[in-house]
């Protein structure tokens, strides 16, 4: 099937206005008759639930954490982009749009990206009005800094905790609606199935994580704001609970999954230190404003960094990409780092690391300025490694961080199932094959504050509110299915823990589906994943029962879904016989090791349809049409 992105016609800068004008509205008095379910309360979920509640809809919001303030958006450090051009350095909506579409290696939907750039300015205004304490200069104006993939300073930030401050802003707006009674909150509740009635999304099945109760909730429309799936790699920068379950179970109910193989490996994370490590910690990309990435020129040079003279160092990013230097985009920086480490020039335990050195910046700007910009990051680095980065360079290494792939949505953020909308990292639309730094917070808030309120009304205006209730037989069937799959997991009573399976899956994914992918490696991965999944259903050991708080059972459900979803990632990576953005197929690269894109054959979104257990998924394509920009070979040299 050829998918239609439902993009308005006309010049790119008029498309969003045009769509807003043609969309149907619902009268204020009627809005409360419509029930909307929002799953997830990170940036996109909290902003959507707050805004929809404020408009007068009856909203139910769900999160697995104990409070909506804890969505993983809170961990985003560096900043949020906007085309304000406050820095007077030549920025504009078009330039921001172009940087983002180029950063995504021409694999995103042009009209969505342009809209993102357009809305960016409104987002900053909204957040300031909410009281988000962005960094300011001595005259009281907002400060900016630079991020990867851009030659202008368009990133707004609140120390190294921008995600936290933006999320607390959205959480405040959400809290206000909870008090007003327009939003009802269900914390410690996990979505385990999507209910589809007559081809439209009409409800969800959830598990109360405290009592174990399985319940269903009906609504007129559903918004999935459930984040990304980097935890499929076991070690990632995601929170321990971040998972693919809600999106994957929607996929099994017919929603298409788009570009699952586009997974971002972030260049600057604290390297792995031991086998019991449970997660990796990001060191914000903003550090590359002032930090210089280098390794020793000589292989196996074990001298401490301070004893390696300047002419025996390789500032690899500055050498390879002189115009962007240390601010080359993430996919490019990660690969360059991997290459020098594979070459035997990495530093630290196992040679899996490079230096990120601040000594020049400290000399230039003074330690106080550096402390002000990144103090909390340096503190965090010291807590984890026991090393002081003011005195010696940080050691960093790439780690799974973000997933550009997600459920397929049209320009209105609606999936192929009417009534199912997908927001934030959980959808696929804006970042193509590689996301630029400081665009994730932006996209989540654009979707939640300024897009969904318009587009959901257009769907709701066409249906009668409250037509479907949980009495419909589809709800009972879905609840039975969920109960059965939980009982199946508990009945296995094998010998290996869920964590052991997850760790093994992560190793397969990292080795064979990580930063560099080959046909042989991917086929190996497919075989190994199938084996591991079979073993999981024979040998997993889950203690306790289903009728109370059982964290191992929660984890088991998520890992079970990862074990199935991993296969879809590999199938997508195998089918995409080109390199683009974060997806590097070793067979398709230039002699210098840069990705070789194939626009003739792969200039499309791959959207996969679930065809039943044991059957291969079916590929649908949404051709990517570029009206305003010419896809070129991406160069940061």
């Amino acid at each position, binding site marked *: 099937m050829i998918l239609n992105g439902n993009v308005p016609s006309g010049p790119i800068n008029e498309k969003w206005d045009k769509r807003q004008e043609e969309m149907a509205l619902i009268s204020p008095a009627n809005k409360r008759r419509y029930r909307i379910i929002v799953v997830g309360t990170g940036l996109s979920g909290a*902003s959507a639930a*707050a*805004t929809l509640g404020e408009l007068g809809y009856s909203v139910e919001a769900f999160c697995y*954490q*104990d*409070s909506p*303030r*804890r969505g*993983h958006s*809170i*961990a985003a450090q560096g900043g949020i982009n906007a085309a304000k051009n406050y820095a007077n350095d030549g920025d504009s909506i078009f330039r921001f749009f172009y940087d983002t579409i180029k950063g995504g290696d021409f694999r995103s939907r042009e009209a969505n990206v342009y809209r993102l750039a357009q809305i960016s300015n409104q987002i*900053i*205004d*909204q*957040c*300031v*009005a*909410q*009281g988000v*304490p*962005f960094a*300011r200069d*001595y*005259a*009281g*104006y*907002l400060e900016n800094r630079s991020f990867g993939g851009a030659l202008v300073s368009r990133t707004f930030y609140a120390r190294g*905790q921008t995600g*936290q*401050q933006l999320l*607390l802003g959205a*959480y*405040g707006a959400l*809290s*206000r609606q909870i*008090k007003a009674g327009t939003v009802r*909150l269900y914390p410690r509740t996990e979505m385990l199935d999507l209910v589809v009635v007559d081809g439209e999304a009409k409800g969800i099945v959830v598990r109360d994580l*405290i009592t174990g109760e399985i319940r269903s909730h009906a609504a007129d429309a559903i918004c999935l704001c459930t984040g990304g799936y980097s935890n499929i790699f076991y070690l990632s920068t995601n*929170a*321990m*609970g971040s998972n693919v379950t809600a999106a994957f179970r929607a996929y099994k109910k017919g929603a298409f999954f788009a570009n699952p193989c586009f997974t971002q490996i972030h260049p600057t994370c604290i390297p792995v*230190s*031991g086998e019991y*490590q*449970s997660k990796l*910690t990001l060191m914000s990309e903003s550090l590359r404003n002032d930090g210089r990435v280098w390794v020793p020129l000589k292989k196996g040079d074990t001298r401490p960094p301070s004893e390696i003279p300047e002419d025996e160092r390789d500032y690899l990013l500055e050498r390879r990409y002189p115009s962007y230097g240390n601010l080359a985009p993430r996919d490019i920086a990660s690969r360059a780092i991997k290459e020098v480490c594979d070459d035997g020039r990495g530093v630290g335990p196992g040679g899996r690391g490079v230096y990120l050195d601040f000594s020049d910046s400290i000399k230039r700007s003074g330690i106080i300025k550096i402390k002000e910009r990144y103090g909390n990051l340096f503190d*965090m680095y010291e*807590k984890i490694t*026991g090393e002081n980065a003011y005195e010696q360079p940080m050691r960093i290494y790439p780690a799974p961080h973000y997933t550009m792939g997600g459920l397929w949505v049209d320009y209105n953020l609606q999936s192929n199932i009417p009534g199912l909308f997908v927001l934030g990292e959980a959808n696929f639309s804006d970042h193509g094959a590689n996301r630029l730094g400081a665009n994730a917070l932006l996209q989540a808030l654009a979707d939640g504050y*300024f897009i969904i*309120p318009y587009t959901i009304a257009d769907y709701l205006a066409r249906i009668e509110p409250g037509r479907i209730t949980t009495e419909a037989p589809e709800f009972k069937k879905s609840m039975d299915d969920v109960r059965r799959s939980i009982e199946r997991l508990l009945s296995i009573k094998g*010998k290996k823990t869920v*964590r*052991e399976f997850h760790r093994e899956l992560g190793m397969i994914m990292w080795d064979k589906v990580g930063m560099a992918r080959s046909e042989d490696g991917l086929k190996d991965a497919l075989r190994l994943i199938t084996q591991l999944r079979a073993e999981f259903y024979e040998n997993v*050991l889950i*203690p306790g029962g289903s009728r*109370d*708080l059982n*964290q*191992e059972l929660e984890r088991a459900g998520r890992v079970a879904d990862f074990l199935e979803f991993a296969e879809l990632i590999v199938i997508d990576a195998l089918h995409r016989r080109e390199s683009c953005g974060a997806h590097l197929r070793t067979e398709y690269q230039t002699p210098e090791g840069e990705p070789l894109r194939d626009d003739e054959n792969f200039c499309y979104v791959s959207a996969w349809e679930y065809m039943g257990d044991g059957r291969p998924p079916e590929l649908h394509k949404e051709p990517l049409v570029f009206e305003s920009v010419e896809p070129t070979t991406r160069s940061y040299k």
Partner: protein
Amino acid sequence: MNLTLFIWRQKGPDDIGRFDRYALKDISNSISFLEMLDILNEQLIKEGKEPIAFDHDCREGICGMCSLVINGIPHGPKEKTTVCQLHMRHFKDGDVIYVEPWRAKAFPIIKDLIVDRGALDRIIQAGGYISVHTGGVPDANTILIPKEDADIAMDAAECIGCGACVAACPNGSAMLFTAAKVTHLAMLPQGRIEAARRVCMMTEAMEREGFGSCSNHYECEAACPKGIKVAFIAKLNREFIKAMLKRKSS
């Protein structure tokens, strides 16, 4: 290193609860405290026992989910550090470690080391925000904020809502938590408009939820992983008195 752990086990809100003793061998000093608990839980699962339930999520010190009292100190012995960022290098071979949940009237225990902190959310719902609608706001740079004020607002806004301040306070008071939000918003021109109303609503909610009062022990600041200062409590009191005078005169 080898460790002896005494960990609080409680099946549910109605169970009395008790300390169970666990011995752990060969723990590396480079792992985190929560990774040490992961290892213990893996052992318990393999022995057919129920693992210890504890809250945690981001494991990088920002989500505020982790909440353990270690040897009597919320978040353990290291200053300005959440449990998830506490590493075993701060302990030594042979140590005996007691692990308990947050204990406060307003935080009922759900299971083992997990408590219900919904009361903190309800304090925020009472008024811990600026009542702005989505859209229709002025350009960001039309609201100028002196850098000093913005910095103080940010210092206060760093609160992660973990509740360690409440667990540390002999009165089980949530003053530091509430004061942080009151200060963050009161420092900003866009937050001044509702400042009086906000401080009253939030303090009332705090009392309603069963949190105690502040009697200047300052244990909260000592336990706070983000270094939120008790000076903000003074700010809350000042805002509260101003609000009372305003209410009287109107």
